[in-house]
């Protein structure tokens, strides 16, 4: 579904992504692990066209997106939940959700499925995004990305700074989405247990390179935990 080949990215002089290649198939969670500063967020931003790639190819559902602007990638069906949530603080919850429809033609509605997955949101539609708690904001950010029914959902450290009860909630949602079978999910995480419980396959990144990859079930055996602790 998503195919990334030989992706390179630089910030000024420093080489951040070094020949990153991987695939994210539908109906499965592809987990990308790595310590702080190795380039995970940069990879996702490059995939979303928010920062330019130096070289490499990104194809999604047969479309070549390597040079496409962000809005084209979203239109192609990629939903993105940025690190640190980045909801719109002065917009209401409802407006935030509707922003998730920005890439669709006018008249599109937030699917009921979104409220089935996050029933609490229905009760806070009129509240301002900035007034929600961190956990609620994270749920809103995921719901917002789901509003346009993406074929690929990208999540950047959704558990960062979130209370355990909400983490469980998010885990349940991601599992349910993967079980539907049609959506590919790319999950960036540092929280090992959370990542392992969801991973269909995993990738480990160190200094801008994928240094190990494999089946999710093999993470323990492959010593992924050790790679993260280094």
């Amino acid at each position, binding site marked *: 579904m998503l195919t990334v080949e030989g992706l390179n990215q630089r910030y000024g002089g420093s080489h951040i992504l070094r020949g990153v290649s991987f695939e994210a198939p539908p109906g499965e969670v592809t987990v990308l692990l790595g310590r702080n500063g190795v380039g995970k967020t940069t990879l996702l931003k490059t995939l979303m066209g928010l920062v330019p790639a130096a070289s490499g190819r990104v194809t999604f559902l047969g479309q070549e997106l390597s040079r496409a602007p962000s809005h084209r990638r979203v239109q192609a069906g990629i939903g993105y939940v940025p690190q640190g949530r980045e909801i719109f*603080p002065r917009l209401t919850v409802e407006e935030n959700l509707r922003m998730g429809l920005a890439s669709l033609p006018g008249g599109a509605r937030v699917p009921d499925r979104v409220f089935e997955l996050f029933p609490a949101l229905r009760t806070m539609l009129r509240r301002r995004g900035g007034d929600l708690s961190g956990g609620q904001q994270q749920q809103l950010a995921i719901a917002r990305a789901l509003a346009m029914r993406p074929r690929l959902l990208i999540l950047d450290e959704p558990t960062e700074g979130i209370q355990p009860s909400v983490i469980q909630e998010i885990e349940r949602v991601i599992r349910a989405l993967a079980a539907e079978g049609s959506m590919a999910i790319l999950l960036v995480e540092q929280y090992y247990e959370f990542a392992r419980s969801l991973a269909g396959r995993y990738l480990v990144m160190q200094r801008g390179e994928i240094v190990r990859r494999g089946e999710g079930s093999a993470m323990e055996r492959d010593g992924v935990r050790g790679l993260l602790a280094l």
Partner: protein
Amino acid sequence: MRPGRRHLLLSLAAGALFVVALALGDQFLDSFQLRVSSLCAIYVVLALSLNLVNGFTGLFSLGHAGFMAVGAYTCALLTMTPEQKEMNFFLAPVVPWLAHLSIPFLPALVAAGLVAALIGFLVGAPALRLKDDYLAIATLGFAEIIRVVLTNTQTLTNGALGLKGLPMYATTWVVWPCAALSVAFMVFLTRSSYGRAMKAVRDDEIAAGAMGVDVFRVKVVSFTVSSFMAGVGGALLGHLLTTIDPKMFTFMLTFNILLVVVLGGIGSITGSVIAAIGVTILMEVLRFLDGPLNFGLFETEARPGLRMVVFSLLLMAVVLFRQRGLMGNREFSWSMFSRAGLARREDGRA
């Protein structure tokens, strides 16, 4: 009755009341008061146009006087009769294609907006790649360039002499409908998906891009539409004062509008309307400050500009103590009254 229906009826009633008030005002106010009233309406248009860019889209633009100047000159040159042009351009004759051109006010007003919008687009397309203070500096520079151009294109604009004796077209029945139209347009826009995208760009550009918003396009559209409104506002101002010259369109003019927007609340239509009316009236009321002041025991000399000191202090006070202005980014709604307990509650819930 359902709240939606009731609010619609209330709005219609308010609209009718507004028309009656205009009719009464037009009948009974003296010419000075009418002029102030028209100025209020023009400031509503101008404040909304600046708020669209600065408040709703989060772009720090300071070039408003430039777009107003473009609008004012376009409209003036299109409406003046050949005789008026001949009288005005006594240093050097006006360019031939303009000499005999004279069209009615309303199409000229639209043309003024369109020319300002075109210039806005041409300036915005490169300048909007800049951020925050850089954008402010670039737009400020643009407005100054416009002034220099106006001063130096003698055969087109009559240079520093300006244009005099414009027909007084900016009557109550022109300016207030323009103001009402601007308010209606802004309400419609901010509730539309486009307006939502603007607010999203203001709140978080990166996230807006990640949602599939074409951030740059939203900025350019907002800037262009705002320029249109500024051009119309400038044209109305010209035809109210009946005289325009390049010195009118300095940064002071932009500052006055910015003052209104900040006092009213950045990102609030209601705030802009209230502050536009309040500030305009106050500016006239405080006009005595610019003349000689009589304190009984002694009398001071006239100090032109003292009035503006008061407004600058007011602005500083707002920035220091109540950054969100009068309204913050809230809006007027009929349910405000029921929430405040002034009217019957709409439903059983407390």
